[in-house]
């Protein structure tokens, strides 16, 4: 019973095996890809492992505090930002091995030519709020 974040990157991940940008796929290939993602999430809901999934716009704003009584400063987006998150899925699984298995399945989503993208996904464990009761002695 541990939660993991599956992170998908626009930019910053190592190159996929089937590394063709989506705008060069056929419309059918795009539909097949979307269907795969949808089915994957639906399947996880059925197994009782799905928590959340969201996609993010590629461009955002950088914001910081600028002192008492002043509006926050905004900046960006920066073209040089190396790490750009595209979206995520949160899963709740029994083991790390299961999380890896599911990430592998998600990475097999079809891309150009209907072939798996072999996209690199980042798998990050959640920090729980507190330690196990019997661990704190």
């Amino acid at each position, binding site marked *: 019973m541990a939660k993991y974040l599956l992170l998908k990157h626009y930019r910053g991940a190592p190159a996929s095996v089937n590394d063709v940008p989506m705008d060069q796929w056929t419309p059918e290939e795009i539909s097949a890809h979307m269907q795969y993602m949808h089915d994957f999430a639906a399947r996880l*809901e059925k197994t*009782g492992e799905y928590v959340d999934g969201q996609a993010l716009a590629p461009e955002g704003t950088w914001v910081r505090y600028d002192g008492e009584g002043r509006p926050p400063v905004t900046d960006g987006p920066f073209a040089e930002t190396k790490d750009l998150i595209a979206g995520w899925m949160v899963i709740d699984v029994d083991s790390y091995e299961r999380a890896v298995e599911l990430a592998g399945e998600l990475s097999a989503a079809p891309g150009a030519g209907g072939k798996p993208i072999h996209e690199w996904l980042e798998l990050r464990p959640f920090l729980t709020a*507190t330690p196990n*009761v019997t661990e704190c002695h």
Partner: protein
Amino acid sequence: MNEALLRSLTPSVLAVLVRRGADFAAAEDAVQDALIEALRVWPADPPRDAKGWLVTVAWRKFLDATRADAARRRREDLVDEEPAPGPAPSVDDTLQLYFLCAHPSLTPSSAVALTLRAVGGLTTRQIAQAYLVPEATMAQRISRAKRTVSGVRFDRPGDVATVLRVLYLVFNEGYSGDVDLAAEAIRLTRQLAAAIDHPEVSGLLALMLLHHARRAARTASDGSLVPLAEQDRGRWDTRLIAEGVAILQTALARDRLGEFQAQAAIAALHADAPTAEETDWVQIVEWYDELARLTDNPVVRLNRAVAVGEADGPRAGLAALAALDASLPRHAAVAAYLHERDGDLATAARLYAEAAHKAPNLAERDHLTRQAARLNARRSR
């Protein structure tokens, strides 16, 4: 209305339905519906016989659902209004439910969810909130679990160790959302102890009570962790400690030692010390040796190294630690603590920072970061 009392009736009501011939999954749904109706109706109109009321309503819900089902499938051959008396149960019904919900064919998370619902009488929503997953996900997890065990015979004794592992998992989850899982685990373990006479059930119950007794002292008002040595022992619940110790002593006297009894013995020795300095670390090391013989758990050996450090000095603790795999969780945290005790503050500070980086939860990370910061501030002065 006492919700805990209502929920304590769950397993026996469920067992009545199953004994009357309802299949487990449908019976469990019907009992859940009856519980929800009780929560709605009882405050204004409390029944004289709570269990009788629940059985009647649950059975009616079961019949309604089955009829609807049967009508859908054009099958009318299943039920009649008055149930035939089922076979006399050979093993206690409540106990059977524990075995079923902890069945080895279930994954740990499924067994936990099913136990909390079918034995504990929690709603799917409450379980979902406690484990911070969407209600739909938890509903699927539970219905899958029910399908998995649907073929399991209800009248066979199971392995009590599987049940204890499930209850231990629930207890360890502690308190999140609006459900106190630690308290619920204690309630379910008490109920189990009443249904079966087994020293490890007692051992687990004692362990839970002894840890629960320290709960108020375990966190500061800002939510940060307070290590055992720094806890205000005046805030420990002496009533729970006394109960835990008494249960443990009775169990140990039967001379069938198991890992939960050994863990409880360690917790009891901590509870017994009026101050941290008066802790009987020599005996604690002996219990860790027992525990290491009973389980092949590297975490036990890590905790043993801490105890050795207290009993025989930090150098001895570091020597015990050196024999262990450095990739073990909390290895760096233990090493940091022992190095600080040994006076090597630079190494300790570095290891505390490393341990914070690897910490599996926020409270521990914050605690370890503070330890590193404390040593760094002292060194730079």
